[in-house]
């Protein structure tokens, strides 16, 4: 009934004129199972915004409510699947993640909040997905997981979920992270595709506006992998690729240098927001 009422209000407003004009994130606070979540915070120095907003503040009230309670959050199924994988032996060494890292609630607490990190071996930034692959191939005698396959998203969601509520905090002083940040900034402001749009066109210039039915957020990544009501569990590089495809551009490969640089830069843009994985979005 609530849903019907809301639909009625939207219809009435639409027929009366141009529909409800939302310009700002909502005034609401989020606690997930008693853990306070930082959904607004002051931006770090050098940031184009003064205040950072979690994408949670841009969603409808029903979607926001799904995030509050882990029993209601459909993304938690993936987290449970990830937990099972954590304890599953993979590869020729007879090891599971838990063999070395034991209880993820202890060993992985805070880890997800600090990625991407500098990886001295590859001389590139590394994210949680690629760190899992590194463990699989170098420690466990297993094959690397292909993008979005073999439980990659679920394991990533499980690991990041251990940092729920902790603020995103990258260390750009490691290795060459600063130059990857710069490269990611270039990617962020580069217009792509026939529609000639950059990340910044929607998520900075038009932040808070409506693009058709979608309320444009700051494009924060603190909730990934995220559960999208229209497409289910969605990894960060899947979302990057989807956005870029929507500009009618060729999609860069997941974990390519461009997208690793972009992940580095946009993660920094959310410095201080809580990890919300798995967030619920539209």
């Amino acid at each position, binding site marked *: 009934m609530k849903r019907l009422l809301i639909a009625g209000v939207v219809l009435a407003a639409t027929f009366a004129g141009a529909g409800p004009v939302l310009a700002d994130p909502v005034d609401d606070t989020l606690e997930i199972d008693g853990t306070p979540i930082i959904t607004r915070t002051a931006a770090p120095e050098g940031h184009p915004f003064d205040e950072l907003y979690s994408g949670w503040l841009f969603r409808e009230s029903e979607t926001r409510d799904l995030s509050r309670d882990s029993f209601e959050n459909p993304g938690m199924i993936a987290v449970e699947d990830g937990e099972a994988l954590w304890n599953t032996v993979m590869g020729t060494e007879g090891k599971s993640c838990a063999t070395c890292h034991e209880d993820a609630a202890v060993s992985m607490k805070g880890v997800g909040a600090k990625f991407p990190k500098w990886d001295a071996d590859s001389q590139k930034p590394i994210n949680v997905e690629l760190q899992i692959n590194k463990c699989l191939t170098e420690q466990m005698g297993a094959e690397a997981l292909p993008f979005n396959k073999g439980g990659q998203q679920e394991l990533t969601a499980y690991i990041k979920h251990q940092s729920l509520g902790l603020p995103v905090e990258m260390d750009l002083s490691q290795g060459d992270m600063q130059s990857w940040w710069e490269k990611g900034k270039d990617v962020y402001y580069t217009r792509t595709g*026939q*529609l000639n749009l950059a990340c910044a066109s*929607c998520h900075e210039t038009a932040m808070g*506006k*409506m693009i058709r039915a979608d309320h444009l957020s700051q494009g924060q990544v603190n909730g990934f992998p995220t559960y999208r009501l229209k497409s289910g569990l969605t990894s960060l590089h899947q979302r990057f690729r989807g956005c870029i495809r929507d500009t009618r551009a060729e999609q860069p490969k997941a974990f390519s240098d461009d997208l690793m640089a972009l992940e580095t830069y946009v993660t920094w843009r959310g410095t201080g927001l809580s990890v919300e994985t798995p967030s619920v979005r539209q």
Partner: protein
Amino acid sequence: MTRRMKITLGAIAAVALSTAAIASEVSPETVEFTDDGVAVSLTGVAGDPVAGAEAFKNRRLGNCLACHANADMAGELFHGNVGPELDGVADRWEEPMLRAIVVNSKHVFTDETVMPGFYSLDAGKDVAKDFVGKTILTAQQVEDVVAYLGTLKE
């Protein structure tokens, strides 16, 4: 005349006709912008406001509603507000300026303008294969949208 010749001649005539149609169309590279906008029709064929309204709301064509509210289309759900409302837009701009804004608003406003150029090859990086060398709207669709915008008076 053999049958084969007839077909060949027919084909040549058809090609000649379609070339003539294209030749009278202004290509995206040669659209002339003046202080008043784009004064000359891109096709020489009057725009059809009904077809223009369809291109305006169709998500695969103009998808103008994604960013612009338009009270004339109150029956359509979800009007965006990234750009200004278009109610009465024909009172604010003459036809040449409306055409210029649709063709490539970055020539009218600034390079920072979010709005794509709908009849421009000045696109972003790595245009997807299917769209390389193509404009978002055809010349006639631009004329149709401009004709529709011309009806939006208060």
